């Protein structure tokens, strides 16, 4: 069975050739339709249909929407501030970042500026939350590949960062921490030492992750050369985040469009060139390392005292106009497009999330892969179903 085609067009052609249209005519009896999700250990709140020919997937069709809650519509009925708690529901593991870009966009519309210390605290919270998300993602990647230890270790080590975030924001997952104009509160006493200590410990742990997981020959066998997304295809499909960076494009919003304090931070964009499932899973790991580095700098450069948020009137009105702001979240670019009509409520909020954009690559990577590769390809896309549904 040779379905593996090199370029995207070939793959699309192949999928259409072997896919729905052809099946209806003659090959229905040879293919088996498998639902993956919504009640499947290898899917999130998400479903995709695959048709398998023996061990090979010849057709895949994602079907999101199981957790669609109409966040965009809800935003039109609430004040700018009131939007914050429910906007972080799509990705509660990355709730600081999803409110980060919202705050940036609202700040642009309302016309306020964040104090310097507030920017630092925002960045710290964002990096911490990125670690939390990536560890959770990594844990699920581990259990998808049948590696139960890799599920338990990151889930446990995630606790380090959750505790830090809890000390910082007061809540464990849904922080509601970024608001337009700054952050909700200042860092607690002794936070810096604790943070540095836990980062140092975490960097030691990362080495062990590498030993048991990334350098494991069985894992390499399973993921290397699987589901290759070439650079051209990645650009064409408009994927983002670690998926893009694994395909050899060093694109990071923090570098491309430095928001807040990130233009003062020295860091490298981590990327790999192979574009296979392994690279897509290894790039977030490299990001975690780099994130530790960034966090050290942030803690180092942070001004000792100062305001953490600028004064915002109780019910801020946005100036008529529109704003599109992005941040780099755990899953790539996370953009908010907000239209304001001069009232305290947004006229239209569009959330452009990395998961939704990465989902486009799923059918093209699955077609031609083996059924055993399905979990590794699916979850290496850094896909969070709830965020894609919004």
């Amino acid at each position, binding site marked *: 069975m040779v379905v593996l085609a090199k370029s995207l067009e070939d793959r699309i052609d192949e999928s259409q050739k072997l896919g729905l249209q*052809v099946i209806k005519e003659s090959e229905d*009896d040879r293919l088996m339709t498998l639902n993956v999700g919504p009640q499947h250990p290898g899917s999130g709140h998400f479903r995709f249909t695959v048709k398998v*020919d023996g061990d090979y997937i010849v057709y895949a069709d994602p079907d999101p929407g199981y957790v669609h809650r109409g966040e965009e519509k809800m935003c039109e009925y609430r004040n700018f501030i009131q939007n914050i708690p429910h906007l972080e529901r799509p990705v509660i593991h990355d709730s600081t970042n999803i409110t980060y870009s919202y705050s940036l966009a609202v700040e642009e519309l309302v016309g306020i500026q964040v104090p310097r210390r507030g920017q630092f605290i925002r960045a710290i919270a964002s990096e911490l939350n990125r670690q939390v998300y990536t560890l959770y993602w990594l844990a699920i990647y581990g259990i998808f590949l049948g590696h139960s230890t890799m599920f338990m270790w990151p889930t446990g080590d995630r606790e380090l960062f959750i505790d830090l975030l809890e000390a910082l924001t007061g809540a464990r997952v849904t922080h509601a921490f970024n608001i337009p104009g700054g952050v909700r509160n200042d860092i607690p006493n002794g936070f810096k030492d604790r943070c540095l200590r836990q980062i140092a410990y975490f960097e030691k742990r990362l080495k062990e992750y590498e030993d048991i997981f990334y350098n494991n020959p069985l894992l390499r066998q399973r993921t290397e050369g699987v589901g290759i997304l070439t650079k051209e295809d990645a650009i064409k499909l408009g994927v983002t985040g670690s998926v893009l960076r694994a395909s050899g494009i060093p694109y990071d919003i923090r570098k491309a469009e430095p928001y807040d304090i990130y233009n003062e931070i020295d860091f490298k964009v981590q990327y790999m060139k192979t574009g296979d499932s392994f690279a897509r899973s290894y790039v977030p790991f490299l990001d975690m390392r780099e994130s530790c580095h960034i966090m050290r700098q942030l803690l180092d450069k942070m001004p000792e005292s100062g305001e953490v948020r600028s004064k915002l009137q109780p019910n801020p009105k946005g100036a008529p106009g529109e704003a599109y702001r992005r941040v780099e979240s755990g899953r790539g670019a996370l953009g908010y497009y907000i239209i304001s009509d001069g009232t305290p409520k947004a006229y239209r909020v569009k959330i452009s999330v990395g998961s939704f954009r990465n989902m486009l690559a799923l059918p093209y990577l699955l077609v031609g892969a083996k059924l055993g590769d399905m979990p590794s390809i699916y979850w290496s896309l850094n896909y969070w179903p709830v965020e894609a549904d919004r």
Partner: protein
Amino acid sequence: MVDAVFVGVAVLTIGSSIVALESRELIYGAIALAISMMGIAGFFILLDAPFVAMFQIAVYVGAVAVLVIFTVMLVRTQSLFSINEDKGRKAAGIVLMLVFMGGIGAIVLTSGLNSPSFGKFNSTPVDFTAIGKEMLTYYSPALIALALTLAGSVIGALALARREDIEQKNERID
């Protein structure tokens, strides 16, 4: 005791082979086939040939029956071999079988195997190591022939095995 066991195993074997032939559900037929293979293994045990019995189970139940069940599972419609009820043919088959069995039985009964002195003639069971010994020394050409047969069979099976889908795809492209 041994006679009773023999009769039980015989009933099991013949009964399950009848089920294997007559079952409308192919999968039950395949299971009955496996059971009848095991019954044959039971005969070998009763004949003091444990090695052959284990061979029978490992090969015929562990490999052949699995292959048969595998194939049956892949058969799309259960009525692939639709049983044509033809009473005349059935009766003729039964009569033919009875005649055949009677003939065999008559030959066996008249051949002297039934004589009382036969028990003394072959009293000690054959050790299976002797089988291996004979097979490798005296019958070694047979071993080579066996190897050639096996090799030919596997190569032939794979040479005959076709990928329908590839051929279909080629046709479609043409």
